[in-house]
């Protein structure tokens, strides 16, 4: 049964790496100064942290169905994280550009929302 023990140890090491990424992302979210740097810290915690945890849990998975659901959670979080970070960063950059071009009190995000409606 030593193979199982090594598998458990490797799994726990991967889970520990994931916990470290979560910790780093959370500290970065607290200490970094502006929105885009916080976004940078957040995406690392999302993708790599949850990825390491899922990889570690996959090594312990009992059957294929459980393994499939673990991969599904990971893929869903990666898809959601990339989508959300693109949306937030695009909105922030567009708002800055609009505020620089026009008066600062303008409704900054009205234009991209309207253009997105046309599709």
């Amino acid at each position: 049964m030593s193979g199982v023990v090594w598998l458990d140890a490797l799994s726990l090491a991967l889970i520990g790496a994931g916990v470290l990424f979560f910790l780093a992302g959370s500290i970065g979210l607290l200490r970094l100064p502006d929105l885009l740097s916080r976004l940078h810290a957040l995406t690392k915690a999302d993708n790599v942290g949850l990825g390491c945890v899922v990889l570690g849990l996959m090594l312990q998975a009992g059957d294929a169905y459980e393994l499939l659901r673990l991969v599904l959670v990971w893929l869903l979080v990666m898809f959601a994280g990339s989508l959300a970070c693109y949306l937030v960063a695009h909105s922030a950059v567009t708002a800055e550009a609009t505020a620089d071009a026009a008066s600062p009190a303008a409704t900054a995000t009205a234009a991209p929302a309207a253009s997105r409606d046309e599709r």
Partner: protein
Amino acid sequence: MAEPTHPAAWADAGLWLAAALIAATIVLGLLRVERGPAPADRMLAAQLLGTGAAAVLLLLARATAQPALLDVALVIALMAAVATAVFVRRIGVQAGARGPGADAQPDSPPPPPPPRPPVP
């Protein structure tokens, strides 16, 4: 289908410890929700919260040998995606909301108003 195996005692304790640590990072993210100056900052912290909750649920599903918690994690991941997309669509990131780091640069005066076209 194989019987779901329960992990060894020390691996089980490691799973519980990892779940507790990730829950502690969720509490750190709640601080950002409380103090974040812009709505976008709070929303980002809420997204980290959703991911952390999914990770805690995955760990607990293994530690307590209840695979139904995996479905709960799936639902939470889906909800986090929908929440951020709806936030950006409905509220958006306001200009000048990029935090004190962006505001603390005094070397960028507001641009002069664009010159009017000459009236013929």
